[in-house]
């Protein structure tokens, strides 16, 4: 039996019934990493010894007849911007190389509390800035469906790990599409929860008004379980919302009858590949045949999402990344004569080109004389973008259906020298972060050359249950999610 091909639910079931030991499951995934990660390069750090210890502890509890959590013995991969006590956390950056956090992110503690086994840290674009992992200072992760292509980003390592069978589950973070776009490129379910649904304590900050942590899985049920484990209020993150967390699996009843789905015309425009548009519209037809009501809607301020995002996110980043100064952690330049020189040289040596570019845009947008023209203007555009969505929900729309990304996975190096082309890869996903609403990507077909196509669902704040229900109903009627990358 190839344990690495099983879903998280199947693994949890087998472990709990002691059909297979947690140790055997962990060993199977470590062996899979050994076998394929030389090609895929999903992991920055593999914590094999720790993983085996955690798995053994789960087995001991089961042998003693003790209660175990819902993820007992199930392996997960963690994006390398989630702090892990005693395990290096680099954020894909030279400036954080060697940084060993003294505490766990809240989501990491929640996972361990639920019995999950962390396999290690997954590669990412430096400080989560990018759409391909090509901005990682360490190496570029490959797409398991076609090793000459990118896995998407910035959570590309997390997505590739799950798609390659190196982990059944992974966590990523999403500031402008960094969970959904790689989920689309790798044929997975990826969820960006509502702003405030999941604590960001211990997530290395990029743009604090946009960042959320969320799950990657091969199917909706697994994603729902992982979301149920990580969601909830945390006194250490004042933006997390004190609202009860449901078991997100409870609403997966396959029933979409009467749900009103909006298809926003702006997301099926020039720049979105015809094969992507066709696959998404076919999925919409299928949902209609299952009883959903479909209507065309308009989000007129969509064209302002990209410019507003690329002012607000860098502005917040320029502030958040001011802490990397060579004093308390990470890289420090040698031979600086004064403290300003220490900061300037450390940062110039430690940050990569994309990160510097965004710090510069953000600093410029916030600087004296330009604040009103850029930062304030972008915040006002953000209001208008939010009103677009609010109008949809007020008219009774339950969810919007769009492509997740404008194309299937592109080739390594194809867009690396064209910053704007790379940024357009997030054109369909940025708006959910700007509006703070939940959004999900799932596989809705394959291109002629066998690459996954992603469909995005967006809904009102805290409508994760509805989005997961729609995605699950779609899964019951299709078998895209059962395909595996040819590795």
């Amino acid at each position, binding site marked *: 039996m190839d344990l690495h091909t099983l879903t998280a639910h199947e693994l949890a079931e087998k472990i709990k019934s002691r059909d297979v030991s947690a140790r055997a499951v962990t060993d199977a995934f470590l062996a899979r990493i050994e076998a394929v990660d030389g090609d895929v390069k999903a992991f920055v750090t593999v914590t094999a010894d720790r993983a085996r210890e955690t798995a053994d502890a789960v087995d001991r509890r089961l042998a003693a007849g003790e209660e175990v959590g819902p993820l007992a013995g199930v392996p997960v991969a963690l994006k390398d911007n989630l702090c892990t006590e005693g395990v290096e956390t680099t954020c894909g950056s030279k400036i954080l190389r*060697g940084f*060993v956090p*003294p505490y766990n992110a809240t989501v990491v503690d929640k996972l361990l509390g639920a019995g999950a086994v962390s396999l290690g840290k997954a590669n990412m674009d430096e400080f989560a800035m990018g759409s391909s992992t090509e901005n990682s200072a360490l190496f570029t992760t490959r797409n398991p469906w076609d090793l000459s292509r990118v896995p998407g980003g910035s959570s590309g390592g997390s997505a590739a790990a799950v798609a390659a069978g190196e982990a059944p589950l992974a966590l990523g973070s999403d500031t402008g599409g960094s969970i959904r776009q790689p989920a689309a490129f790798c044929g997975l379910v990826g969820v960006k929860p*509502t*702003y*405030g649904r999941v604590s960001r304590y211990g997530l290395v900050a990029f743009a604090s*008004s*946009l960042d959320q942590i969320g799950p990657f899985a091969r199917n909706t049920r697994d994603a729902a379980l992982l979301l149920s484990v990580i969601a909830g209020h945390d*006194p250490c993150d*004042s*933006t997390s*919302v004190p609202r009860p967390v449901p078991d997100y699996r409870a609403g997966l009843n396959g029933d979409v009858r009467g749900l009103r789905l909006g298809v926003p015309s702006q997301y099926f425009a020039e720049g979105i590949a015809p094969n992507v548009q066709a696959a998404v519209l076919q999925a919409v037809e299928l949902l209609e045949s299952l009883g959903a009501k479909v209507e065309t809607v308009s989000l007129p301020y969509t*064209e*302002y999402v990209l*410019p507003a995002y690329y*002012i607000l996110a860098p502005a917040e980043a320029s502030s958040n990344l*001011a802490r990397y*100064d060579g*004093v*308390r*952690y*990470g890289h*420090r330049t040698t031979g*600086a004569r*004064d*403290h*300003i*020189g*220490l*900061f*300037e*040289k450390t*940062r*110039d040596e430690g940050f990569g*080109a994309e990160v*510097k*570019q965004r*710090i*510069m*845009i953000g*600093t*410029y947008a916030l*600087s004296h004389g330009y604040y009103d023209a850029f930062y*304030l*203007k*972008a*915040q*006002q*555009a*953000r*209001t*208008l973008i*939010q009103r677009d969505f609010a109008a949809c929900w007020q008219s009774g729309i339950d969810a919007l259906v769009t492509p997740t990304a404008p194309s299937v996975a592109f080739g390594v190096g194809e867009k690396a020298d064209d*910053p*704007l082309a790379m940024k357009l890869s997030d054109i369909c996903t940025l708006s959910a*972060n*700007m*509006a*703070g*609403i939940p959004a999900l990507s799932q596989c809705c077909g394959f291109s002629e050359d066998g690459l996954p196509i992603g469909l995005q669902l967006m809904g009102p704040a805290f409508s994760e249950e509805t989005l997961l229900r729609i995605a699950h109903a779609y899964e019951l009627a299709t078998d895209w999610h059962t395909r595996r990358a040819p590795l």
Partner: protein
Amino acid sequence: MALTREEVGRVAVLARLALTHDETDRLTHHLNDLLGQFAHLQELDTEDVPPTSHAVPVQATLREDVARPSLPREAVLANGPQVDPEAGGFIVPQVIGE
């Protein structure tokens, strides 16, 4: 409004980045490129539109003013590139006076 090389240099000072000559050239080019692509935002009518800083209304949340345990000093210093464990601090270049 095109950004000059000198303006990019000034922004780099604010951002505490010691850019090389080549980096300044490249960034001047990139920033102008992006700002040009985003010019239509400037034309958006935002008269009477309030700015949004957070997606959901966030209020300052307060907790009881009770001391809680914090990280031990050694754990925090462990990541410092240059520390003085005995004095219990990070080492920085001289900041005040000669």
